[in-house]
């Protein structure tokens, strides 16, 4: 029997229309705008000035904190400006504007297709390389990879899980790289395995990607690294959620507020594995990624999987792909379940960009909400075992203590509750806001407790 996670989950139509579109390389635009916030954590600090000449793969920004990442130039050219610019949702973020001149790469970067199968043995050096190349998790959260691959002392990784679930409908970029770059991904897994101390690695792929499963299995068999296996998973959303995938693969549950490493798991996306391979074996920083151009109102022949460089304006990509289709009511970056609606097409691609999704009005328009009849469907669908209908009510009445007692902080914002609600109640909208407030309260409390503990420690010394 195929494995999947235990509680909750929904089955949206997977709509993988672009699954057979091979990855194409996008030509370079005239200008790129590279954002300083391409990762979870503190924004990076730019280290280039206007007028500087940069090459592709050159560092242009340094990490702004412990949880932060290097940012590299994706093109060669001249820095035109370092200024705030609107991102996807219209909020300002510092971008480095580079006018493209030719396509010259920084020294030491291997751009050839030759496979480097030899796995390095120096852990610290490999981690350093991953960090210097600005590799972040490409599954959606863009958490800096070197932080996750370096568990806190006392924690031991027992299993590396490669996330090839791609449970979001429409998206096919992970599917394509698993088919076209399967060997590179497996080598990347072997490298991460070595860094984590040789724990077994499992590549979890949902059943709706048979080509990817066979390609990956073949690559694993041909390369012959020890302890790497492919696991076919039953199709269910949100299988690609970290905690859900751990539950599906290892049958373990991460407790509330815990990190995956507490149950011995490290989860990385297959695209991250590819980025790790390129960083460690080819010295190539994370400046390219794959994105899907798809949607329910886009004809099949206009659907694509593109290899893009970070900083390309979305409008440029949309135009190159044939313009915005007629009948598109909403453009989404990411999948239809968790993606973000794009309000500003002048925004640029970032490391974690995964799609340009055109949705028709019929697909995306919200229906009018009616009253909750407490049918409990949302509670059944919640993969974290929460009661969204109750959280919604508590949130509306701002009952923070009760919300915390009902574990609102465990919500992963997957949207299963809202997807399944027969009354079309916008549950996630309210819950997301309340979650932010509750987590703010919890953080403030933790900070106060820490300060009090430090004060108590300092007092006897006086």
């Amino acid at each position, binding site marked *: 029997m195929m494995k999947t996670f235990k509680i909750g989950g929904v089955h949206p139509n997977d709509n993988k229309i672009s699954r057979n579109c091979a990855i194409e390389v996008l030509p370079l635009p005239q200008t790129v705008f590279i954002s300083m916030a391409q990762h979870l954590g503190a924004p990076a600090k730019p280290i280039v000035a206007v007028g500087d000449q940069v090459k592709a793969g050159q560092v242009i920004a340094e990490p702004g904190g412990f949880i932060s990442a290097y940012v590299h130039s994706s093109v060669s050219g001249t820095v035109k400006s370092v200024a705030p610019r609107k991102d996807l949702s219209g*909020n300002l973020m510092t971008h480095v504007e580079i006018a493209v001149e030719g396509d010259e790469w920084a020294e030491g970067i291997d751009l050839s297709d030759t496979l480097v199968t030899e796995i390095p043995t120096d852990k610290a050096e490999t981690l350093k390389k991953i960090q210097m190349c600005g590799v972040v998790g490409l599954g959606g959260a863009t958490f800096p990879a070197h932080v996750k691959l370096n568990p806190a002392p006392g924690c031991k990784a027992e299993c590396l899980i490669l996330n090839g679930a791609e449970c979001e409908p429409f998206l096919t970029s992970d599917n394509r790289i698993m088919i076209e770059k399967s060997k590179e991904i497996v080598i990347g897994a072997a490298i991460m395995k070595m860094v984590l101390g040789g724990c077994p690695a499992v590549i979890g792929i949902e059943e709706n990607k048979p080509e990817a499963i066979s390609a990956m299995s073949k690559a694993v068999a041909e390369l012959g690294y020890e302890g790497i296996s492919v696991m076919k998973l039953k199709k269910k959303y949100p299988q690609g959620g970290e905690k859900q995938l751990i539950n599906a693969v290892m049958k373990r549950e991460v407790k509330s507020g815990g990190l995956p490493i507490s149950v011995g798991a490290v989860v990385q996306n297959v695209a991250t594995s590819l980025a790790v391979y390129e960083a460690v074996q080819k010295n190539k920083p994370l400046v390219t990624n794959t994105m899907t151009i798809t949607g329910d109102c886009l004809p099949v022949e206009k659907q694509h999987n593109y290899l893009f460089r970070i900083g390309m304006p979305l409008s440029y990509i949309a135009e190159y792909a044939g313009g915005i289709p007629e009948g598109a009511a909403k453009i989404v970056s990411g999948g239809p379940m968790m993606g973000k609606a794009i309000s500003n097409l002048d925004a640029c691609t970032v490391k974690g960009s995964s799609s340009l999704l055109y949705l028709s009005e019929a697909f995306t328009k919200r229906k009018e909400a009616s009253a909750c009849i407490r049918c409990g469907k949302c509670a059944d669908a919640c993969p974290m075992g929460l009661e969204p209908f109750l959280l919604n009510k508590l949130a509306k009445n701002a009952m923070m203590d009760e919300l915390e007692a009902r574990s609102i902080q465990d919500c992963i914002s997957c949207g299963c509750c809202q997807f399944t609600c027969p009354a079309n109640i916008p549950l996630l909208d309210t819950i997301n806001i309340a979650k932010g407030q509750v987590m703010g309260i919890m953080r403030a409390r933790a900070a106060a407790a820490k300060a009090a503990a430090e004060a108590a420690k300092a007092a006897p010394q006086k």
Partner: protein
Amino acid sequence: MDITIIWTIVVITLLGVTLAAVLFLVARKFRVEEDPRIDEIEKLMPGANCGGCGFAGCRAFADSCVKAGNLDNNFCPVGGNETMKQVAAVLGCAAVEQAPKVAVIRCNGSCANRPKVNEYDGLATCRVKAALYSGDTGCAYGCLGCGDCVAACENDALKMNPETGLPELDEEKCGACGKCVKACPKGVIELRNKGPRGMRVYTSCVNKDKGPAVKKACAAACIGCGICAKTCTHGAIVLENNVAYIDYTKCKLCRECEALCPTGAIHGVNFPKPLDKDAIKARIKARNEKAKEVQE
């Protein structure tokens, strides 16, 4: 039969008397001495329990006043100076006068001034909208138009104007409790001094972007040109983050800034006469020429 009834009456009566005596004694022994002035002050309060004073309700405010024994840090914005005078009389201390305040909505972004660039289809509250993105207009700072302030107002002073898409304030009803200020995720609403006879001048914009970007987003926004700050003879206007802020404690209501503002972002309200731009401009010109002469 009769005896049973009589006994019942006797027993119940005795029981009642005994328990009443116990209750009386307990109430005496454990009585909480409360200053009668608390009740007195509470009666003077508007009774809205709005929390505008910073306390949980009117009684909590009264309690705090009596405990402090003075009114230095206590002020009921809804009751205003009149109520506070009465409270001061009860406490036998000096009343602290505060200029009456009023909520001011600092956004000009009506549908005509600030065209929509996308359509919002999510939950219609400003809070959710602000958490999702910068809003359905080109301006990332102004009113989001979902009416969280209207929902927060307990005095029924705010109404959404469907034509402009902005909230409108009924000054008579506004108690300056500050609930709308807290409810607005964009910080558009400010409590400002009501001014003499309600006259006040303020910048009706909070957009911190630079001029060209602001102009593109909204026709009546503050573009941060600084003409007002340069002209103001009272030093009341500060240009910060590309927005001119008028300090209501320094403003002398001369309306020169309002006349000069190229976009009409500065508003003067409740003035008896309409703004005579030409007269004011002539006045400024004459003053500048005079200053030049003096310099020469």
